[in-house]
């Protein structure tokens, strides 16, 4: 039996790329043959995947095509043709951000998103059984016309977060920390749905009301350069000076150094299909203050502060309480680690394999 995976972009340092590699490991360990096929393969992963157009029909071989859906791609149409040719398809849905968020900043991305949603619906009749990272994603699949969606969280190797951080970066950040206050951190691509502007707004109020020496670090490459520019202007308008830094292109060890000095992880994102950084934060024992939207409450559980309102003053006050040393903070750190253990690679791998075998048996 062969289960091959297909994804539009296969890139390093990407949650879906890592999930695909881990899924292949799970499948191979269980005795299935499995390869990865992609539309765009980034050079460092060149040996791990092949161009999907090189994949030809294999008569006589029992095979399932597992499609990772998160963006638009001509691959969707190609897969539909393969299904019409008699092959079996299943979808693993990682969520597609609503176009609304990009319409005013990046109209081309908004248009691509609409295409992606159309493709997702187009494949629904051909994939009777599907997988989703969260209950939130599963509900979206059903809404798109899929008959059945089983929740299998993203496969994330949490052990990788316990590697040593970059020494030089860590030393520099620690020296800086000696002269500054509470350190806020948010990790995620600079994109309008992630609402970094709300984080900057809440941070500005926090500095004015609670801690004038606080610092904020936003880490993530820019999906929307126009939105990034608006954020940079916002930092100037709110007179935040160099207390806010927006970083991209960090190596994993450098990012770990930023986690090591963070006092709180603040996520005010409005649309997340799972939110891996929340999981990272829980694993690393950094208290989480998050807006209760999309799949975030499902991932965080009761292991952090969930807010129904993201008014800057509400968020600032919640952060002030979350970072104060004491039993409440200790409780959160403990609860967060317990919650992260639920998503350990061993647990999620078992869950995925059981779901795949359930699908094959059906």
């Amino acid at each position, binding site marked *: 039996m062969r289960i091959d995976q297909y994804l539009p972009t296969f890139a390093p340092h990407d949650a879906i790329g890592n999930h695909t590699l881990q899924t292949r490991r799970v499948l191979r360990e269980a005795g299935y043959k499995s390869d990865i096929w992609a539309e765009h393969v980034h050079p460092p992963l060149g040996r791990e995947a092949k161009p999907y157009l090189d994949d030809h029909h294999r008569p006589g071989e029992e095979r399932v095509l597992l499609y990772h859906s998160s963006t638009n791609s001509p691959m969707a149409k190609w897969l539909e043709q393969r299904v019409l040719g008699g092959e079996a398809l299943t979808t693993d849905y990682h969520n597609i951000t609503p176009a*609304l*968020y990009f*319409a*005013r*900043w990046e109209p081309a991305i908004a248009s691509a998103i609409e295409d992606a949603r159309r493709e997702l619906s187009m494949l629904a009749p051909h994939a009777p059984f599907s997988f989703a990272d969260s209950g939130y994603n599963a509900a979206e699949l059903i809404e798109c016309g899929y008959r059945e969606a089983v929740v299998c969280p993203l496969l994330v190797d949490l052990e990788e977060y316990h590697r040593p951080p970059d020494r030089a970066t860590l030393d520099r950040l620690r020296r800086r920390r000696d002269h500054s206050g509470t350190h806020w951190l948010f990790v995620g691509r600079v994109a*309008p*749905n992630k*609402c970094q*502007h*709300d984080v*900057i*707004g809440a941070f*500005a*109020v926090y500095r*004015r*009301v*609670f801690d004038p020496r606080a610092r904020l670090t936003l880490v993530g490459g820019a999906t929307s*350069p*126009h*939105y990034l*520019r*608006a*954020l940079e202007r*916002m930092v100037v*308008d*709110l007179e935040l000076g160099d207390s806010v830094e927006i970083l*991209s*292109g960090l*190596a994993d060890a450098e990012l770990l150094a930023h986690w090591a000095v963070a006092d709180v992880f603040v996520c005010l994102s*409005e649309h997340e299909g799972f939110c891996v950084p929340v999981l990272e934060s829980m694993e690393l024992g950094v208290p989480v*203050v998050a807006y*209760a939207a999309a799949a975030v409450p499902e991932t*965080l*559980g*009761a*292991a*952090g*502060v*969930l*807010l*129904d309102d993201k*008014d*800057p*003053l*509400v968020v600032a*006050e*919640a952060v002030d*309480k*979350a970072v104060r040393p004491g039993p*409440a903070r200790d*409780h*959160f750190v403990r*609860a967060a680690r317990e919650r992260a253990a639920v998503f350990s690679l061993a647990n999620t791998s078992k869950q995925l394999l059981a779901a795949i075998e359930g699908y094959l048996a059906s």
Partner: protein
Amino acid sequence: MPNSNGGRAPAVIAPDLSPEAFLYIEKVRQTTKRLSAQEPAPEDLSGAVQAVRNVATFDVEVPVTSRRRELELVKTGVKRLSVWYMRYLAEQLNAFGKSVSDLGDALAKRTDALASVSDDLAVRLGAVEERLKRLEPVATVPKTPPARTKSAPARTTPAPARAARTPSKASPTKAEQ
């Protein structure tokens, strides 16, 4: 804080704040609101102009960061060599962008003004029609009703319901002529 509702934060009690702090918080609220996602209304001209303004600034500060130090040096070199050229183009594009958004502003204001005049005219027209409706039955009742047979009056009195439906198009009766 950990509580019975699954980690959800309780309602906020605002600390004592100075008037300046309140003003600053209000400024932050306005700024974040401006950058938030909004459902585009099909006829929201001001929103469309704002969207143009959001993308009408061309930045020449090309990012040069890279995971690889040598690539970063190359990018920095290329940027220094080409910045004069890019700046020359960007200045023209920024001026163009500003003119387009100013044009949009002017059109939005003019459209708003016309819409306001149109609303005013609609109200006045409605009042005139109402008045006409009230006057029509009076005008159609003859001062000295002619002697008719019992079945005749129905022919000379206009049907009130029809007059109410299309008052401006009601054709005069024979009696009015």
